């Protein structure tokens, strides 16, 4: 474990050094991360105002709170490993990683965390700015705040494992961008990004409860905003736990099969 800790620390340093080499593109990328939830925020606030108050139990200022928290949660949990993998396989840089006596997911997690460490202060500042403009209503309870942290950690882990498994598609096909696009759309709909899940039709809500995506973004957001309460909090943690286990097993088996295939067709 100490060895792994050392690795994470080193990878973190490397990640930071790399990120800081590209300050310009970092800023552009962060602006994009703010703009996307901002668009949904504006759209849904306008809709709720024009329908005379609320949509699915959300008023304009509730939408503001929802999307400001979602922006931060999404920033913490999202990853870009599928785009990295595509590059690694096409360029053949993966071979060097395969020669290391270590599962490559560790390096990816550590790299992800290091970039979050750089970007999060910026995003928090952006959230503060948006709060001034859009006047969100937060109804924070100590219980919700306490449950939020483990929910966020689980959300990160589940999302990373699922993303990593999807990324492994790069071993099997050269048309990864199509798969990435489908995955991106699924995340958009079922995680609660395009709209809070309460606003969606019932069948979609049922699907969202089964699929992993809600548990990687929407659940922690709703939890913090007090929209998930009582036994549903525990149920949410149970589903997150189940997906964590499923994700870990998926990574384990799909990874093995992928490496086998990679080394059969030519590394």
């Amino acid at each position, binding site marked *: 474990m100490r*060895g792994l800790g*050392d*690795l994470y*620390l*080193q*990878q973190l*340093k*490397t990640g930071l*050094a*790399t990120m800081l*080499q*590209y300050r310009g593109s970092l800023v552009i990328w962060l602006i994009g991360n703010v703009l996307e939830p901002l668009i949904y925020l504006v759209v849904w606030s306008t809709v709720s105002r024009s329908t005379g108050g609320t949509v699915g139990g959300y008023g304009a200022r509730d939408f503001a709170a929802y999307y400001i928290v979602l922006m931060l949660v999404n920033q913490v949990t999202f990853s870009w490993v599928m785009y990295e993998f595509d590059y690694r396989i096409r360029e*053949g*840089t993966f*071979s*060097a990683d*395969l*020669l*290391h*006596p*270590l599962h490559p997911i560790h*390096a990816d997690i550590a790299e992800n965390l290091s970039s979050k460490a750089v970007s999060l202060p910026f995003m928090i500042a952006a959230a503060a700015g948006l709060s001034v403009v859009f006047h969100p209503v937060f109804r924070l309870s100590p219980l919700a705040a306490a449950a939020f942290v483990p929910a966020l950690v689980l959300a990160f882990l589940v999302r990373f494992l699922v993303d990593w498994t999807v990324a492994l598609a790069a071993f099997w096909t050269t048309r990864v961008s199509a798969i990435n696009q489908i995955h991106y759309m699924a995340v958009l709909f079922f995680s609660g990004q395009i709209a809070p899940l309460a606003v969606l039709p019932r069948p979609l809500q049922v699907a969202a409860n089964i699929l992993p995506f809600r548990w990687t973004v929407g659940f922690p957001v709703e939890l913090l905003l007090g929209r998930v309460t009582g036994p549903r909090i525990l149920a949410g943690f149970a589903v997150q736990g189940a997906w964590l286990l499923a994700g870990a097993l998926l990574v384990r088996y799909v990874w093995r099969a992928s*490496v*086998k295939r990679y*080394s*059969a*067709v*030519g*590394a």
Partner: protein
Amino acid sequence: MGRFHEDSRYTGNVGAEPVIRVRDLKKTYVTSEREPGLRAALASLVRRRKSYVQAVDGISFDLEAGEMVGFLGPNGAGKTTTLKMLSGLLHPTSGEIAVLSFVPARRERAFLRQITLVMGQRNQLVWDIPAADTFELNRAIYRIPAADYRRTLDELVALLEIGPLLGKPVRNLSLGERMKCEIAASLLHRPTVVFLDEPTIGLDVTMQRRIRAFIAEYNRRHGATVLLTSHYMADVEALAKRVLVIHHGRLLFDGELAALVERFTAHKTIAVRLRDCAADLGAYGEVVSCEDGLTTLRVPKAETARVTSRILADLPVIDLTVEDPPIEDVIEQVFTRGAA
């Protein structure tokens, strides 16, 4: 433990298992191919034609501990495929490999810790940060104890003369400087088996020589087993007494470089310096060139002694030398004969 000192485990273990053991190794790549053009593209949606490429076709060899062996062959001969199978990146289609008694394709951590594969055209250094940072990362990945790391790094920095380069972002290094740093990064964990795939490709002569000297020194100091491919015969001549020659996936020769030259050269070169080029030496052998009084003749090996004494007796010779043809010519001979 003596892992980081003059390594005693790999000296004098006569009769022990070879470090690398390869038996009847084969690798077939399956690719789907199609004709160019739109119609063919559409047809390929329905039916894909598969083609099979026999990259390695039944090779066998052993490498003993501490041996340094050159792996020769033209492009596409199967050298890189073989190195990738030996280092566990590729699964063999059939045959057996044991490296340090491990099956490489299983990629066990204990195996990966003891080997390295340096590829001249691929890199592991992180492009945007100084090499020193990648070194630190490798220290963590291989869990190298701090003291060992320090000692190894100091040694590599001194031998490769990369001290001043360590703090510069890798993208600002020249090709040769980068290659030296790549090699250092690959050796920090002190592998006992080193696979080098074209380590000097694209480098200038001075840099080639320096890297060559380093490899020889690493092998001498640590008793590492080294298998090296190169396009540059000078690399192989300088480093390897023994060579494996591979062509179309088959092993054409396995033995001492000197024996290869002996076996595959039917001719010798006689260079004769006369006062002028006027004399026609065509009667003594095939004239390869004649410049400024220096005539180069190619004669059958068996005839060399007789022809030499005749020239000395018949002509006003200033100087005369007998040489083996350049090693490149020998290798070319091997390939043309092997292909025939």
